[in-house]
Every structure is written in C-alpha cells, then in structure tokens.
C-alpha cells in the first residue's frame, strides 16, 4: 500500500516545502522523533516504520470501517460471558465457590478498596467495553466534529488501557496457586476470555484511527484557534 521512502530531515529544518500540501499522507512527521518522511504508495500491504527511530507510522492492512465494526461487535458479544461466567470453580471447606471477574471487582469494592477495584474494573472490563462501543459508534456518520474527536480520543485511551492479556496470565497464576490447595474445576468463561484476548490483539493490529481522522476533513471546517486540549 504505502512504503516509507526515506527522510527529508527533521521537521524544523524543512520549511521550504510548498505551501500546498502534497497528496494525502505522502509526507508525514514521525510522532516519536519528528523526522519528516516521504511515503510512496506501492502495491504492498506492509506496515510503515520510521527509518530513524523505527516507530510504527501507518498500518498496511487495508481494513475498512466495516471490518472494525465486525470485530467490535464480536468483542462486545465475547466480553459479557467472560466477565460474568465462571472462570473456575473451587471446592473449599465443604462448599463450591464460583470465581468470576465481576465478583472479584465487587468484593474489592465492598472491602473499601475502591481504587484497586476501579483499576481492575477499568483495565479488565471498562476499557475493552469502551473500545468496542467506541468503534461501533464510529461506524455511523451522525457525529458532529467535536463529538467525533472525543470518540477518537476515547477509543485511543481505551486501546491503551485494556489489559485482557495480562488478566489471562493473572488467571493462570491464580489457578496454579490454588490447584494444590483445593479441588479446582475450570469454568466456561475461559473460552470467550481466550477468544477475547486474541480479538483485542487483532484490533490492535488492524484498527487504523487515520481513516476516521480523515472523515473529519469532510466535515465543516473547524474554527481556527478554538482548540480544546
């Protein structure tokens, strides 16, 4: 699709360019090191990386909003069972105990550890939820400019904070800690949880915010200087 050709020089030295912007995305600055790179459109699907600092510049996967929507709906369907269903059951002191993610969050809250509870809820449940709902909302074209910007910022935050893969490893640690102490049976939530982990990895690979940012160019022009942030 597009490939990084080479460098022009750091941003501050290359002011001599034409006032009219070159064709879409053919020139960009690296967000991590400020190098100006020229991007040539080729017929490959390789991702682009900065030639100086190796930052990921653009995704070569030619996915559309419909792909993202499909992934997000799947994610939303998987999220619910992996949160409320049994991760495992424990036979302890004469009683079966169900272990779910939601129960852990609620118990922490009830013990007045609201910060820890909130952090676990945010990283394990709310951030993935925000990611999926955000992408679903982005698939329709009804948003005014400001709302679209907020949605994109929200999706970006949720993408950084969803830590389902860490939760899966934590689950393994907990299971290994308990397996010698008590009778343990694995529960039905493991399957959607594993699928959810792979799905989020896939979204990380395929979701390209640039195609949504470009839609902003189609909306009425933003008043100069009325910047938020």
């Amino acid at each position, binding site marked *: 699709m597009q490939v990084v050709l080479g460098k022009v020089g750091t941003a501050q030295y290359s002011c001599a360019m034409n006032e009219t912007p070159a064709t879409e995305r053919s020139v960009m*600055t690296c967000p991590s090191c400020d190098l100006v790179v020229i991007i040539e459109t080729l017929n490959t699907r390789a991702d682009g990386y900065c030639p100086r600092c190796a930052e990921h510049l653009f995704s070569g996967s030619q996915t559309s909003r419909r792909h993202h929507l499909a992934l997000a709906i799947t994610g939303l369907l998987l999220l619910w069972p992996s949160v409320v269903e049994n991760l495992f059951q424990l036979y302890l002191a004469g009683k079966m105990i169900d272990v779910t993610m939601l129960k852990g969050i609620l118990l922490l809250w009830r013990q007045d550890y609201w910060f*820890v509870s909130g952090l676990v809820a945010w*990283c394990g449940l709310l951030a993935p939820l925000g990611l999926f709902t955000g992408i679903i909302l982005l698939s329709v074209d009804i948003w005014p400019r400001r709302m679209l910007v907020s949605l994109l910022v929200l999706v970006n935050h949720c993408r950084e904070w969803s830590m389902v893969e860490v939760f899966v490893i934590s689950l393994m640690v907990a299971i290994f800690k308990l397996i010698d102490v008590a009778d343990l049976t694995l529960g039905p939530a493991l399957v959607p949880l594993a699928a959810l982990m792979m799905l989020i990895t896939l979204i990380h690979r395929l979701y390209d915010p640039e195609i949504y940012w470009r839609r902003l160019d189609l909306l009425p022009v933003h008043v100069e200087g009325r*910047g938020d942030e």
Partner: protein
Amino acid sequence: MSKLQPPALLGCHRCHKLVRWREQSACPRCGAHLHLRTPRSLSWTWAWLISASALMLPANLLPITRLQTFGMVDEDTIFSGVMSLYRNDMPGIATIVLVASVIVPLFKILGLSWICLRLKVGGSLNQAGAMRLYRFIEFIGRWSILDLFVIALMMSAIDRGLLLNVTPGPAATAFGGVVVLTLFAAKSLDTRLLWDQDNDNESKEP
C-alpha cells in the same frame, strides 16, 4: 527556541495531520492546540516518577494480602508472598510475580529517570538505544498490574466468611498507585526531545 523556528512542519500530536506550526495555532483538523514539543514534558515525567517512587515504599513494605483462617490473620507483603511461592515449589509462578510486581516497576522508574537525567544533563546520547529502552519500558509497563488481578481472583476464590478468607492489605492501593503513576510517567515523556540534536532542553519547552 533557537532551532525550532516557525513556520515548521509539525504532525499534530492528536490526529497526526501534517500542519505548518505557528505560535498559538490549533490543528485545522481536530482542533488540538499545537506545540512543537509537549509543554513541560520533562517536569511532568519527573513529577510522576517521584510520586511513584514515594509509593514504592508502602507498596513493598506494607502487607498486600491478608489470609484469615478461623480468626487468625496471616499477612503477606509482595516479597514474602513471592518467597512463600518459592518455598511451595512454584518457582515459575514466583518468578512471574516477582518480575511483574517488583522488577518491572523498579526498572521503569530507574530507566525513565535515566532518560530524563540524560536529557537534563545533555552531552552525547545514544538516541536509538534510549528510544529502545523507552519502547521496552512502554511495553512492559502494563504487566505490573498482574498482581492486582491475582488479588481480585484470590479474593473471589477464597471467600468462606470467618472460616477462610482473603482480603487485600493497604499495600494494594499503594501498588495500584505505582502502576498508574509509572504508566503516566512513560506517557508524559515526549520522545522527540531525545532526537533534538543539541541537548539544550530548557529552550525546547515552550
């Protein structure tokens, strides 16, 4: 502001649109305030790092879990929890917990402080190496939350009222603070500062 003269080409930090930077201008596409370098990026990073280091003490010294058995309370700090895992022949699990909850936060704080110090002091800097270190810190950062997930799971697993019960200790909150603050510290560091040729950083933070 010696080298960073307007009008310079700049990628908007929010939507990455290529724009021509002028003082006090906003991104024409997303409306974000444009700045060549994140304002006071180093000061913010230092602030997060110092707060995180301060919380490292209670996080590691106070008990993080309490096990109640028939009214008896057994308290574990992060480190004693790791040691008891070693003693119970679970070296793999013990290593995972040790790395995620002790080594990773410590490494993040030290690594980011080193980068900030080098930026402050100036002199020749292995830019690619520093960038690799930063990326590594960004990558491992999220894994330190592992212990909190484990606590949530253990709590919901061992819950038999007065008979047998696991509750978190005060270190859990402090440790959560360390995790969040180190993530903020990594996020607030503007890596473009590393690549500015002359390391005269004061002038680059408008």
